[in-house]
C-alpha cells in the first residue's frame, strides 16, 4: 500500500514537470520542468529499492546516484544553450526559436 | 540602468559617488562597467570648491596666507611656502638664512608625513583594514606634534610670512626633531617588511595603471607620479630654490611607471628627505628669522606679476600672482598638482577592474581640497 502512495506522489510530481514543459513559453521554465520530471524518476528508483525483496543489491540507489549526476550535466548544457539562444535572438521565448532551416 | 549596447554586452553605469568610503574626500567617478572591467570613467569633482582664488582678490596679501593651509590639507606648510615664495619673487624680498633652513626642515618633514599617510591610505584602499594605516598615522602624529610645538597647530600652521617664518624654533624643539628623525628609518624598515614582500599586494599593484614617460610629460604630471614613469624632473633640483643647492640629496625615479613604482617611489623619497633633514639639522645657523623690511600691515608689492613654484609632496605647486600695486592681489591663481595629475585617471583606468580604479586613484595620491580649491 505504501509503495503505491509513493508512486502516486512521484506521478503527480512528474505531471507538474510535464505541465511546466508543455505550457510555459520561457526556455528556462522548460528546463525547470525537466528537472522536476528527473526528480520524480529518482523518487521511483528509491521507492522500488525500498520495497524490493533484497535491498542489499542497491541497484535502485545506484541508478538514482547516476541519474542525479547526469541531470546536473544536462542542466549545465541546457542552460548554456539557453544563454546562446538568448544572445542570438535577444529573447528566450521558446516560440521565437523557429529558424532551424537547412 | 542596465542597457545593452553593441554585441548585447550588458554594461552597468555605476557612479562611485562623492559619498564613498575610499575616494579620499568628495570625488565622484561615473564608471561604465562591462561586468567587472571598466569601459569608461568620467571623473566629476568640484564638491569641495570654496572659491579660494576669488576670495583672495578681496583680502590683503597676508590675509589669504591662512587659507593656503586649507588647499592641500595633508601638507599645509608646503602650501604656505609656495605662496610666500611667489610673493617674495613678486616683491623681490630677501629671506635670511636661518629662515631658509627652517623652511627646508619643516618642508621636508611635511613631505615625510604626507608620504607616510599615503602608505597607510593605499593599504586601506586594498582592504588591509587599517593595520598599515594605524602604523603610518602613529608615526605621522609625532611629526604633527612637532608642528604643533613650533607653529601652534598640528595642521593649520599658517607659519610662513613674506621674507621668513613667523616664529623661531622653541627651546629643545630641534633636539626633539633630530631624535625623532633618527627613529624614522626603523619605522620604514618595519613598513617595508610588512608590505613590500606581500604577494597579494604585489599582484594588486604591479602592472596596474601603467603610465608611459612620454604620456606623463604630455599630460603635465608632476611629482612622484611623474618620476615613477622614469622622468627625472624635481623642482628642488631644477629651480634650486631655498637652500636646496647647499644640501646633497638624490632624486629617485622608477622604470615601469605602474602603481607599484609610485608606491616604492614614496618610500624612497622619505629616505631621501631623512638625509636632507639630517644635513639641515647640522647646518642651521643662528640669526634673524624674518626680513625686517617687510611690513605686516598695509604690505603693497610693486606692480607686476610673478609665478613661484615649489616641489610639494604631491607635485609642482605653483602660485601665479598679479599685483596692481594695491593692498589686495589683482589676480591670484594656484597650479594644483593633484588636479593635473588627476586628468590622466581615465586613461589609466580603462580596461582595468573596478577594484583597480580605487588602487590607481590611491596611487596618484590626490587631496580634494587642492583639486577643487
Amino acid at each position, binding site marked *: 500500500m505504501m509503495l503505491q502512495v509513493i508512486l*502516486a506522489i512521484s506521478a503527480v510530481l512528474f*505531471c507538474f514537470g510535464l505541465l511546466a514543459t*508543455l505550457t510555459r513559453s520561457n526556455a528556462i521554465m522548460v528546463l525547470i520542468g525537466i528537472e*522536476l520530471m528527473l526528480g520524480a524518476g529518482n523518487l521511483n528508483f528509491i521507492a522500488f529499492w525500498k520495497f524490493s525483496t533484497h535491498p542489499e543489491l542497491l541497484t535502485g540507489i545506484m541508478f538514482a546516484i547516476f541519474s*542525479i549526476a547526469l*541531470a*546536473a550535466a544536462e542542466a549545465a548544457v541546457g542552460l548554456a544553450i539557453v544563454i546562446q539562444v538568448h544572445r542570438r535572438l535577444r529573447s528566450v521565448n521558446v516560440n521565437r526559436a523557429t529558424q532551424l532551416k537547412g | 540602468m542596465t542597457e545593452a549596447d553593441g554585441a548585447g554586452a550588458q554594461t552597468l553605469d555605476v557612479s562611485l559617488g562623492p559619498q564613498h568610503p575610499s575616494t579620499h574626500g568628495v570625488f565622484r567617478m561615473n564608471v561604465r562597467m562591462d561586468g567587472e572591467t571598466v569601459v569608461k570613467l568620467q571623473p566629476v569633482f568640484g564638491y569641495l570648491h570654496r572659491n579660494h582664488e576669488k576670495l583672495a582678490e578681496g583680502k590683503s596679501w597676508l590675509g589669504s596666507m591662512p587659507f593656503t593651509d586649507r588647499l592641500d590639507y595633508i601638507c599645509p606648510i608646503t602650501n604656505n611656502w609656495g605662496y610666500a615664495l611667489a610673493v617674495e619673487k613678486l616683491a623681490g624680498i630677501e629671506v635670511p638664512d636661518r629662515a631658509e633652513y627652517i623652511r627646508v626642515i619643516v618642508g621636508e618633514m611635511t613631505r615625510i608625513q604626507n608620504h607616510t599617510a599615503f602608505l597607510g591610505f593605499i593599504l586601506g584602499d586594498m582592504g588591509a583594514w587599517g593595520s598599515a594605516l594605524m602604523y603610518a598615522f602613529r608615526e605621522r602624529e609625532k611629526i604633527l606634534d612637532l608642528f604643533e610645538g613650533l607653529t601652534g597647530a598640528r595642521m593649520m600652521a599658517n607659519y610662513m610670512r613674506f621674507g621668513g617664518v613667523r616664529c623661531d624654533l622653541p627651546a629643545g624643539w630641534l633636539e626633539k626633531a633630530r631624535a625623532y628623525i633618527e627613529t624614522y628609518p626603523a619605522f620604514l624598515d618595519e613598513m617595508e617588511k610588512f608590505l613590500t614582500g606581500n604577494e597579494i599586494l604585489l599582484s594588486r599593484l604591479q602592472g596596474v595603471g601603467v603610465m608611459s614617460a612620454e604620456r606623463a610629460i604630455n599630460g603635465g604630471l608632476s611629482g612622484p607620479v611623474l618620476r615613477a614613469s622614469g622622468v627625472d624632473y624635481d623642482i628642488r633640483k631644477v629651480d634650486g630654490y631655498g637652500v636646496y643647492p647647499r644640501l646633497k640629496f638624490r632624486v629617485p625615479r622608477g622604470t615601469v611607471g605602474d602603481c607599484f613604482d609610485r608606491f616604492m617611489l614614496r618610500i624612497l623619497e622619505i629616505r631621501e628627505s631623512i638625509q636632507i633633514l639630517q644635513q639641515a639639522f647640522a647646518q642651521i645657523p643662528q640669526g634673524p628669522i624674518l626680513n625686517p623690511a617687510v611690513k605686516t600691515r598695509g604690505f603693497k608689492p610693486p606692480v607686476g606679476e610673478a609665478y613661484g613654484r615649489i616641489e610639494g609632496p604631491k607635485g609642482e605647486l605653483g602660485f601665479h600672482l598679479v599685483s596692481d600695486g594695491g593692498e589686495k592681489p589683482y589676480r591670484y591663481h594656484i597650479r594644483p598638482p593633484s588636479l593635473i595629475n588627476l586628468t590622466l585617471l581615465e586613461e589609466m583606468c580603462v580596461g582595468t577592474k573596478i577594484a583597480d580604479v580605487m588602487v590607481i586613484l590611491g596611487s596618484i595620491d590626490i587631496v580634494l581640497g587642492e583639486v577643487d580649491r
Partner: protein
Amino acid sequence: MHELFQKIIALPWDQAPQWLFLIPAFVMLMGAAAAVMLRNLIHCALCLTLSFIALGVLFMALGAEFVGFVQLLVYVGAVAMLILFAILLTPAGEVAASNNPLRNFKFSRAFAAAGGATVALLVLVSLLGAIFFSPHARAVVPPAQAAIAPVKAIGENLLNHTLLPLQATAILLTAALIGAALLAKEEKKS
C-alpha cells in the same frame, strides 16, 4: 481532564509512524506546483529549490541517506544556482508581437495552457490507473524492510559492481562541462 492527558501521553509517540514521509512529500508537491504556476521567474526558481530540498529529505525518510545528501548537494548547491544565474543572464526582453495570425489570436495563451493541462492530466490519470488498478499492482508486495543503505556498501558497489558506469559518467561530466563552458563563453569582439 487528567485521564485524557494521561491517555494522550500513553500513545506510542516515539515509533515514527510509517506515514511520516508524507510531510516532506506534501512540501515537495507544493514547491513543484508553485514553481510551475508563478509568473516571476526568480520565485519559480526558489520554489524549485524548496522542492529539491524536500525531495532530498524524502529520500532520507525512505532510508537512502546518501542519495538524499547527494541530491541536496548537487541540486541545491549547483543546479539551482545555474538556473538562477541563467535567469539573471537572460533579461526578459520585450515580447515582440509576431505576425503569425494563429499566435496573436486573443485567447491563444489560454488555449495553449488548457491543451497542456489536459495532456498532463491524461498522463496523470493513466499513471495512477497503472499504479492502483493494474494486475501487477495487486501482486503481493513484500513489506518495507528497514533497509538502510550504509555508505560503505554504496562505496564498494560503486567501485566494484558499477565501475564502468562511474568512469563513463566521469568522462561524460567533463565533456558536458567543457561544452557548456564553450557554449556560454562570449565570443571575443573582433
